């Protein structure tokens, strides 16, 4: 259940921003999450609600924006869409696709008061 650690890290980042930027309440948190990443969206939502209690992020809506998996195929010399980390190239069948997107775990935006 590393989503708990991820949620704690997210709340820490928000509190850091709150201290530096001087906001006292967060209405919405937008997080970019890779489709091939390490985090299960529902588990993150559950943990975020639990660990944000008593912080500036309490009650904030967590909006998760999914980033699709992409990789660079050296054979095709272009970026292709992949559905799994170790997916073959959907164009040429090569196993040499190097993942370039889909592992994101970023705090993108806050809507604050």
């Amino acid at each position, binding site marked *: *259940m*590393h989503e*708990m*650690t*991820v949620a*704690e*890290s*997210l*709340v*820490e*980042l928000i*509190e*850091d*921003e709150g*201290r*530096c*930027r*001087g*906001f006292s309440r967060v*209405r919405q948190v937008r*997080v970019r999450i890779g489709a091939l990443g*390490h*985090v299960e969206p529902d588990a993150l939502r559950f943990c975020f609600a639990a*660990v944000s209690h008593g*912080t500036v992020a309490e009650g904030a809506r967590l909006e998760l924006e999914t980033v699709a998996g992409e990789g660079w195929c050296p054979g095709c010399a272009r970026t292709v869409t992949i559905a*799994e*980390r*170790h997916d073959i190239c959907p164009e040429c069948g090569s*196993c*040499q696709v190097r993942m370039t997107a889909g592992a994101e*775990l*970023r*705090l*993108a*935006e*806050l*809507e*604050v*008061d």
Partner: protein
Amino acid sequence: MCTICGCEAATGEAPRNAPVDSWRPGRHGAGGKQGSIAGNRSRDGRHPDRHGPHDHRHPAHTHDDHGAIDFGTGLAGVHLPGMSQERIIRIERDILSKNDAFARANRARLKAGGILALNLVSSPGSGKTSLLVRTIKDLQSRFPIAVIEGDQQTSNDADRIRATGAPAVQINTGKGCHLDAHMVGHALDRLPLTAGGLLFIENVGNLVCPAAFDLGEAHKAVVLSVTEGEDKPLKYPAMFEQADLMLLSKADLLPHLDFDMDACTGFARRVNPRIDILTVSARSGDGLPAFYRWIEQQVRSDTTAKGEGT
């Protein structure tokens, strides 16, 4: 320096002088009172603020000396009719950026100290500790060796390591399912680390969560025992993708099992074409010389890389 606002508050420095044996949620922030980096992590909000109160709020627009009115200086840096600029803030920070900062500090510290660190990951019961005990006995005449043991509870594993004469620190993660770079930084404070030495970090037995947390190691080595399914690399690809070495352990049991070695190595290479694969048995010693050669090769290439870098 604070990576958010540029203030002087420390982030990412190697933590020191805090207990390592109480990482349970809710007790973690106590280290902040000693001025350690834990204060930065604590959710009760003790950012070690040495620069006095300040306010990063900006007005929705500014009037400069020349009388111009700029609507683009608000928090959002944009002007949208009917919407207050103070409401939307672009952040774009990696959520695990603090762990990554601790990991970078650990890596720099280990590299400067001339120590090769391996992060051993696997499911519980794969034989990591038995493999380590045997490895230490075989290699301790050639390398100074130290060990960090991660488990939810007990110091059983560290006790087994210490019985070999090697120094070991046990980290109990409580309910935590993985080691993180902050914990490892504390453990480094308590270990004698000798130049040219090896540091083995035995992670919490778990093929999922440890994959998300860089500890500052030089290499991850994933241990898969032949009593497990050969399709583990496909079931838990993140872990195998990140490892530089896969050790197939308990090989002495192979005659009694239906484990398909070729299928397993094929699955591992499909997930990670660069992964080195060795078959070992801590009980019989079979395959261990190849593992030791792999370690020596990493030590040499690490030293070469350091020489090139300076």
